[in-house]
């Protein structure tokens, strides 16, 4: 499980960290502003968001890793604050169901097409 989550996390880093954003901006984009209906901390100008921005900047300067900062915040505010849903027992279905459905859909499609070709011959 750990290997899998490592792969997923590294994949996440590749897919999300496009461009010149520094680490801080990236972290702020992945945090939910709890008081503003679904905006990210990065996008929000609320008081709460400004505080979290400063705290994250401080922690980054202290040399904490991205993961440690996410851990710190989710410890205080719950997983609700993390927009990049961590892979845990309660989110296995969320992360794997799409792949299962994709394969299932593909299988149904394949069988259907195959069945139809055979009938012609």
């Amino acid at each position, binding site marked *: 499980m750990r290997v899998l989550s490592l792969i*997923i996390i590294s*994949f*996440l880093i*590749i*897919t*999300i*960290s*496009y*461009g*010149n*954003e520094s680490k801080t*901006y990236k972290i702020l*984009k*992945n945090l*939910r502003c709890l008081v503003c*209906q*679904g*905006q*990210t901390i*990065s*996008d*929000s*100008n609320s*008081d709460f968001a*400004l505080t979290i*921005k400063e705290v994250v900047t401080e922690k980054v300067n202290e040399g904490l890793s991205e993961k440690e900062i996410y851990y710190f915040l989710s410890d205080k505010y*719950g*997983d*609700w*604050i*993390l*927009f*990049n*849903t961590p892979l845990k027992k*309660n*989110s296995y*279905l*969320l*992360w794997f*169901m*799409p792949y299962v*459905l*994709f394969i299932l*859909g*593909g299988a149904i*499609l394949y069988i*259907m*097409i*195959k*069945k*139809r*070709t055979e*009938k*012609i011959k």
Partner: protein
Amino acid sequence: MLSSFGISVSTISLLLSLSLLYLSYYDLKLSNNKISKKIYKFAFSQILFTFLSFITLIIAYVISDFSLINVYENSHTTKPLFYKISGAWGNHEGSLLLWINILVLFSFLFLILNKDKNKNFKLYTIIFQNLLISTFLIFLLTNSNPFSLLYPIPTEGMGLNPILQDPALAIHPPLLYLGFVGSSIYFSIALAALITKVDSKSLALTIKPWVSVSWTFQTLGILVGSIWAYYELGWGGFWFWDPVENSSLMPWFLMTALLHSVLVLERRIGLYSWVIILSILTFTMSVVGTFLVRSGILNSVHTFANDPSRGLFILSFLALMVFSSIFIFFKYAPAENKNYKIFSKESFILINNWFMVFFLAVVLIGTLYPVFLDTLTGQKISVGPPYYNFILAPFLLPLLFLMTSGPKHKWISSNVIGIFNIALFTSIILFFVFFLSIKEGGLLLLLILLFSTYLITQTTFDFYETFKNKNINLSRIISHFGFGLLILSISLNQIFSVEKSFNARLGDEKNFLNYTIKFNNLETFSKNNFKSVKGHFEIIDKKNIISQKLTPEIRVYNQPETITYEASINTKLFSDTYLTMSNISNTDIFNVKFQKKPFMNFIWFSVLLISFGGILQFLRLKKRV
């Protein structure tokens, strides 16, 4: 006065809808070949009265008649006329009336535009459509009445949320409703076709124009919504995978699937049941979206006021609709005609459908999972952009590839070779040019760039071919080209975006990368419905020696009291400069956020192209008929 008039008019249109149900049902049993004249007359009065009720509401808004709770809660005398009018559909009750108007409009258009169709098929469609209309009218009159009275009559209204006072957002709901409420008509057609056993060709021909129309409007509606979010919400993003945005995207995926599979149904016999399922699902998803947005079970950037009783009504309606359509489907679904070969064009279209349904599933899972988890276990988690990007981005590769090669296949059967041609070669060269100039960004992103350039070059070649061969489907080429351009622009936007936020006092100067930002002046002024603090900034790009002046604002609106942060955007062909500021409480320090957003115009333009494909498709249909 207007209140009782509005209520009477809506009640009459409910009665007319019920009479249409009765008349159509009665007419089914008559043996004549034509639909009775009476039905046309009733349908005409129905659309007249429904429009009249909507116009009544708009008039109430225009003259600021605060004896209507709805007007009192959402309008204000100082509001500009344009926003008084658009305020009529900027709230739950008014937009529900707009919903009903569109249901009636499509029902009426269907009746008069399909003169020579099978009589019972038409009658059943009218019956199903009027079942929808009357349910929603009952909902309107009993639970969400925009004409409800308020006593004593207040002298002033509470005002419309200032972020909704915007031209883009004024036209956003009508466009989007024409899209997904429009899908109701092929929901009704599909059920009617099942019952009356209409053959696949006439089902395809009946459905197709409605699919292209609603798909085009849905695309445009989504476009306008994201343009609004881009400049009004002040965070420089245009898509956030927010539940409300997802609600408009879910029907879009299904409409896209339908748009493709109808092609098969029309040319050859096959996919009959599948097209019916898709038609039913599209409208179902539209209602699911409406439920999610209006019941208040989701936490979102764009919310309607919450009220559980609304949610309950829509949910019961949805349940009734789903259960009865499943029942009808199982009772009447015909045995499928089977005549296929692998690698035929049908397979490619089915693969398109596979992807679209998959995308729908991902968005649906991402939207509903937190709700389900919270309800079943009490644990709260958030699902945001990282989830959708991570799951969906890899699937763009095969999708882009199939969009390029799929349409090159002939009907019935063909082989795989011939895909690797000059277009691929060109795009690989272009890709290396990109690769050398970018140097960063993940592998996946680079591959997406490659595949989207491939699609763009291939469709460009196809476009040249249409001059030689008039039979090639231009709408497909334009939409696919637009999609390639969209993905390319979004990727480039991601790669080249620059973002910098910092704290500054008046007079400060900030240097970073090749930019210098000077905070030159601060101005305060008031207008009739807001006070504003406006910062004057000068941004100097040292590499290109350009200086731009930008003026972000912080506005405090008085009716209702709201603070908004107005972004100042300088739009150039290739790149936008985006500046916002906010004040840090109890200080004279401002938090300034500078963003460089490349290729924004290309993103908007490519979505326009995609929808333009839909328009062309519709026009082509007209010509042929």
